[in-house]
């Protein structure tokens, strides 16, 4: 199996889907001639031409709305947001139009659009460019949200998203773009709504998504080596649909849970996961559910402090030991 980067995995998914389905179109700011602000779409203009890979003006409400309209007629647009933070100027399109059109038409209209791009802090760019809107968007029925943590999942989830008949919002992470991993060269998908046990363990379950999975895996190593604790790490991969079964099975196995996410804590994804666990596995818990999130403040600019604001392995280890105490 080839070892490629998270960025290359995303690109491979889009290339294969462009080849597979003539209705797939890539669109966004700087995706074509500039080869992508983060080079995710590099080379695709050259390979597929300007009809399939389209540069847009800086006009998120306009071009996302255009993509939604085109998707209603069967085009499968894959729209790049340079940052998910920029989605807020297209919120009416992303939520009101894409999220509601099937429902309000009584099931008559499909909206097979993918909107993708990075949604992460940790890059020293300040609060306006560091939003993680997966919880905000996943709270709207009609919308699907995925957050791949590894190259394998990035490719498989992206392909599933493009083939899905509903709006799927893929939240990537610029810090992960250069991470390498094994990725099959052929066609495969990672279905939406299927979590993955990234590390097996017996003493504690950590539930995470996105880059928090990588942070949690590092913490799990430390916990094993320095504290003799066996940690299981469950990667949600998909926020909505949510794989409740995999989460609950792990809780029933370890009886102790720590939730880790890069969101701010209030109304974060893990608020829902904590509710799920107490509702459906209350008797399996041997301790209160622990939680690590970003420190609850707008994203700070100062790099040294931003690294502290985000979950990091030492903070995860500390929180894990409290749950284990």
């Amino acid at each position, binding site marked *: 199996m080839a070892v490629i980067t998270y960025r290359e995995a995303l690109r491979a998914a889009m290339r294969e889907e462009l080849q597979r389905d003539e209705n797939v*179109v890539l669109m966004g700011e700087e995706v074509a001639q500039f080869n992508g602000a983060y080079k995710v779409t590099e080379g695709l203009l050259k390979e597929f031409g300007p009809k399939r890979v389209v540069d847009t003006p800086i006009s998120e409400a306009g071009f996302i709305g*255009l993509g939604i309209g085109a998707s209603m007629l069967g085009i499968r647009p894959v729209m790049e947001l340079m940052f998910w933070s920029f989605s807020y100027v297209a919120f009416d399109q992303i939520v009101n139009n894409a999220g509601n059109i099937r429902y309000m038409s009584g099931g008559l209209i499909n909206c097979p659009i993918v909107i993708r791009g990075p949604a992460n802090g940790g890059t020293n760019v300040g609060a306006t460019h560091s939003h993680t809107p997966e919880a905000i968007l996943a709270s709207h029925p009609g919308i699907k949200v995925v957050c791949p943590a590894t190259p394998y999942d990035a490719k498989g989830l992206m392909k599933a998203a493009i083939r899905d008949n509903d709006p799927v919002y893929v939240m990537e992470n610029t810090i992960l773009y250069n991470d390498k991993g094994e990725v099959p060269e052929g066609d495969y998908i990672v279905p939406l709504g299927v979590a993955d046990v990234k590390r097996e363990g017996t003493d504690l379950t950590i539930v995470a998504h996105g880059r928090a999975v990588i942070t949690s895996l590092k913490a799990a190593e430390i916990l094993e080596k320095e504290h003799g604790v066996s940690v299981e790490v469950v990667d949600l991969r998909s926020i909505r649909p949510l794989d409740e079964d995999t989460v609950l099975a792990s809780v029933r196995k370890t009886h102790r849970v720590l939730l880790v996410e890069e969101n701010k804590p209030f109304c974060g994804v893990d608020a829902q996961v904590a509710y799920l666990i107490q509702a459906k596995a209350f008797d399996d818990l041997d301790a209160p559910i622990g939680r690590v999130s970003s420190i609850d403040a707008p994203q700070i600019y100062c790099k040294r402090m931003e690294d502290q604001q985000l979950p990091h392995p030492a903070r995860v280890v500390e929180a894990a030991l409290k749950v284990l105490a």
Partner: protein
Amino acid sequence: MATPAVLTHPESLKNPAGPSEFAKHPVNTALSKADKVALYTKMARIRHFEQRCIRTYQQGKIGGFLHLYVGQEAVAAGTISLLGKHDHIITGYRDHGHALMVGMNMNECMAELTGKVTGCSKGKGGSMHYFAPDKNYWGGHGIVGGQAPLGTGLAYAVKYRGLKGCCLAYMGDGAVNQGAVHEAYNLAALWDLPMIFVIENNGYSMGTSQERSSAHPGCLAKRAEGYGMAWDVINGHDVYEVRAKTAAAVKRAHDESKPTVLEIFTYRYFGHSMADPDKTYRDKEEIKEYREKKDPVLLFENELLAEGVLTPATRDAINEAAMAEAEVAAAFAEESPDPTVADITKHIYWEEDNRGKDTTSRGTIVFE
């Protein structure tokens, strides 16, 4: 570019009752007698459907907002009567007239207003959210101007597929100040999309007159020039003129794949919605003036009577049939069942509606 050299002030468009100078336009002389009767019938049906809605609303059977199209019939009728297989339409929340024009029936429209499962959106959309994709009608959108980018996407898809078609996106005069509309203008012009933006200018964005809401009032279509788009202004009380001038925009879209902005001057006889008491921002005399002298249904009726296409007897029969049809629709809506509690969670996701078919999704999708 077919751009008027001199700004036409809307006053000059408010021509009094009389023969339409556009009756002899080829697009209108091409209409058979039966075509003209059918067009008049459609306008009368919109009028009588909307008037029946008022009663249903006053009986407390329609919730939420009800934005009536009475007075504006010639806009939907004139423009939509020109469209073909690959032409699409999308509009805002004043969407009943367009729905009836594309061939949606009164029963499904009335039942949607009363929130019944037999409604066109199964009671899930309401007055502002009618859809009929099988008739190229893509809504029915509740947020002012939100339909403009979506319509641009429909035009994009038509062009992408290499089809000879276009999209008409309708909006009110209030929508022209929304950012999304300007983004759509830019994209349509930048990418040469077969797109027609139709501003149905009824003079008031809710209770705010055009003079109080839009810079450069008097002509909203002229903003198209900033994007290098063709534009035109139309007397929306004359269905022949609406057809003649819209036909040029459709031809431009079909033959050159170029967008157009049309501003159609029209007037609504009732408040912004039924929730608007309509007492604060305009005079009753103004409404009376329009009703008596510029009514689009009456003007067309007079035109067709003069042409010998209609007789008083056929006119009366058409109107009585439309009223009866609206009564039947009201009864149908009354007798239809509500959706069920189980229906609340249907039509959210594709796989929920297509169980057993191949899907890329698993897991919990709708939460307790």
